[in-house]
């Protein structure tokens, strides 16, 4: 819907209303103090203007009560604004569990997006109305940023790691998205359109284009091609842990700590396998740095995610049973 504030874009996501409300509050508060101080300055400049050339002002040192007052009151207001902003942000940074996950790769100077069923888009993102959508984003080169003004959300896309962001579209329509972290020559044209569709239309659109390989199948093929399956044997008899049920589980590491097996863990295990060794296993996995692209890693991850529901072998090695929370 229209934002109550002039010149603001439409409010098209679950965050937009909250962000605009906080913005309005800060605006009213800062306007109040700015106007107050400005009026005081203009008043004083007029009332205490010099009347004769040699005139001096009063001999006043200060007032401690005023000092304490105008320190404490702004501090309290500032902390209030901080807390409100932090609440919105924490909600934004911690995605809900039931999200529609879309993979996003930013590269100079275009965006490649992949829907859960494998359908790919370039510089376009189609999402269904009223679904929680999570973008899992990687970069192939420099830092980019995915920004949707109408949703009031953005997140940097940093090479060497995944960043995630989530939102729930609340209004159908087409909205700008921009790259919002300077990334070189064509930074300004590295944008596109987010299209929010009714769920039925989205489903129809999603299954529309044939010929795209679904990432799980692509990942499964890679898993064999790259010989992952020779060590990561499903029934747990290999020299590497079975990957059944791994995704989302707590993994016990050789140093006694545990880590949740999320997308970032999978990616790190492929590129820097010696970073985290599963308890009960030897550090023998070779690195695939330079041998797989970011997209291939996403496909492998999608395949490994699909193994969540596979039976975990009895000889589970260091893998604890999957906990209630899946992701």
């Amino acid at each position, binding site marked *: 819907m229209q934002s109550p504030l002039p010149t*603001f874009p439409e409010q098209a996501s679950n965050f937009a209303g*909250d*962000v605009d409300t*906080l*913005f309005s509050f*800060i*605006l009213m508060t*800062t306007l109040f*103090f*700015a106007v107050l101080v400005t009026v005081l*300055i203009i008043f*004083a*400049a007029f009332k*205490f*203007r*010099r*009347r*004769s050339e*040699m005139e*001096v*002002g*009063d*001999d*006043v040192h*200060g*007032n401690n009560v*005023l*000092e304490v007052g*105008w*320190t404490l009151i*702004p*501090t309290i207001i*500032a902390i209030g604004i*901080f807390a*409100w*902003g*932090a609440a*919105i*942000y924490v909600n934004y940074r911690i995605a809900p569990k039931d999200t529609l996950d879309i993979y996003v790769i930013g590269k*100079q100077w275009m965006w490649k997006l992949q829907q859960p069923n494998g359908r790919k888009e370039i510089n376009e993102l189609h999402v269904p109305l009223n679904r929680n959508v999570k973008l899992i984003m990687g970069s192939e*080169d*420099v*830092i980019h940023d995915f920004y949707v*003004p109408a949703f009031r959300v*953005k*997140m*940097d896309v*940093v090479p*060497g*790691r995944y960043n*995630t962001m989530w939102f729930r579209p609340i209004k159908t329509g087409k909205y700008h998205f921009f790259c*919002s*972290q*300077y*990334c*070189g*020559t*064509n*930074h*300004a044209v590295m944008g596109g359109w987010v299209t929010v569709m009714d769920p039925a239309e989205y489903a129809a659109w999603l299954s529309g284009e044939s010929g795209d390989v679904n990432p799980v199948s692509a990942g499964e093929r890679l898993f064999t091609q790259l010989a992952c399956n020779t060590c990561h044997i499903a029934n747990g008899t290999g020299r590497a842990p079975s990957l059944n049920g791994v995704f989302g589980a707590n993994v016990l590491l050789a140093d006694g700590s545990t880590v949740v097996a999320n997308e970032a863990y999978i990616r790190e295990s492929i590129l820097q396998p010696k970073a985290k060794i599963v308890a009960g296993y030897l550090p023998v996995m070779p690195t695939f740095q330079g041998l797989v692209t970011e997209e291939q890693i996403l496909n492998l991850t999608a395949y490994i995610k699909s193994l969540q529901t596979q039976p975990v072998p009895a000889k589970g090695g260091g893998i604890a049973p999957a906990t209630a929370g899946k992701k």
Partner: protein
Amino acid sequence: MPEKHYLNATYGIRSWLLTTDHKRIALLYLASVTFFFFVGGFFAMMIRLHLLTPNGYLLTPDLYNRMFTMHGVTMVFFFLIPSIPAILGNFLIPIMIGAKDLAFPKINLLSWYIYVVGGLFTLWSMVNGGLDTGWTFYTPLSTVYSNSAVAPAVVGVFITGFSSILTGLNFLVTVHTMRAPGMTWFRLPLFVWAHYATSIVMILGTPVIAITLALAAMERLFGLGFFNPAMGGDPILFQHLFWFYSHPAVYIMILPAMGVISELIPTFARKRLFGYHFVAAASLAIAVIGFLVWTHHMFLTGQSTYAAVAFSFLTFIVAIPSAIKTFNWTATLFGGSISFDTPMLYAFGFLGLFMIGGLTGLFLGALGVDINIHDTYFVVAHFHYIMVGGAVMGYLGGLHFWWPKITGRMYPEWLARIAAFILFIGFNFTFFPQFILGIMGMPRRYHMYPPEFQIYNVMSTAGASILAIGYLLPMVYLTWAAFYGKVAGDNPWPATGLEWKTQSPPLTENFDVTPVVTWEAYDFHNRPDLQLDVPSGKGSPVVAPAHGDD
């Protein structure tokens, strides 16, 4: 005009280029800093002209990207950081405390040479390949992907950093060890307190940017991998190191300007600064807390949510001392005897514009709002309000206020007032529309933009042309006034600082006899030498009727 002073004490180019007189060094800085201001201003002009249309009619993308990068690098490192400290600070601090010079006069000269060498290095790289990484040099764009002269530019900035460090060192030692008898800490002008706080930041912060740029240069030149993820490095590490200095750096830019305002308001209201101790403490608080907020530039890099929350909290805290100062400056006006000479007009301009700039920082520090306006034109407007509306206004106000002391001659008052107005109006037309652009969603550093953003871009460019006139006028008339202005005398305003008890222009050794200080700063009531109408007792003013009584 006095017969002998620091300008005519010795003649010839060598007596200037090999001077150790802090006043002459200040003028050397004035010339070189003004040069870089115009270089940076040229880049700004190119940016604003290009952005008149949405489709990039004037410059290629690579050329535009060089314009905004080089505008930022020039203005930050070669104009804003040195401006007030190296020009006004160098000229005034020894005189304000009753000393003959700074503690290390030769190092002062070395500081200037280092600045010039670094500046020329960077200037050379700007015309030989240019720089298109943004002044923030984020990696791996700057260290791996950019096709511009990153390494030499970064080396130039690295070199210039030492100028900052040495100046800060000089100021700290001078204030500690060379105050005249009776010039206790709490009798110091707040200009000195402000530069003391600034010097702490210069000394502690600048080495960090030095090492960061050195690492970035090594990565670029030798293919090392500190910040390059393809080699196991971390691009976010660069940002932490960069901002650890570059946030405190903005306090290096604003604290001296606040110090100027703390001189102007008491002088032109003929009244002590309200809450002197609180303002002094606030300067130190800003310097210290300013080191604890750097990650607010990185709220959306994917770093720890807890860290973001902590840094947002600290960011709100750092705003408080600035608010305290603003309230104290305002309170000083009440009960004063206010005149509207040009320096005071700049002080009023500072109050309004710094307030807007500072308050808009609250929007950015609030995490939930930053998600939306980070990396948009809202940020650009915010920092220009503080840097230009604040720091540059403070610089120009100070330049006008002390011009009679520096040159012995007055600038033309009415022309100067008109220029101040032109500047104020031009400034607001340039940068206020940029807040709106940010809210609408226009990202920064865009050589092209969607057509719905055009109207505010055109407004901004129109404002910039007015702003340019506001800058050119003082350049012209201050230069003219230095040679042909009305002779000013020792203390034309009159003001209470020690610098106004010397001749204008001062002798090379500032004072022929070391002064002994027995009065507080801005004490108009106990300074019979100023010959003002001070009320003699309670309720019985000597001459004029009590003001504010009409």
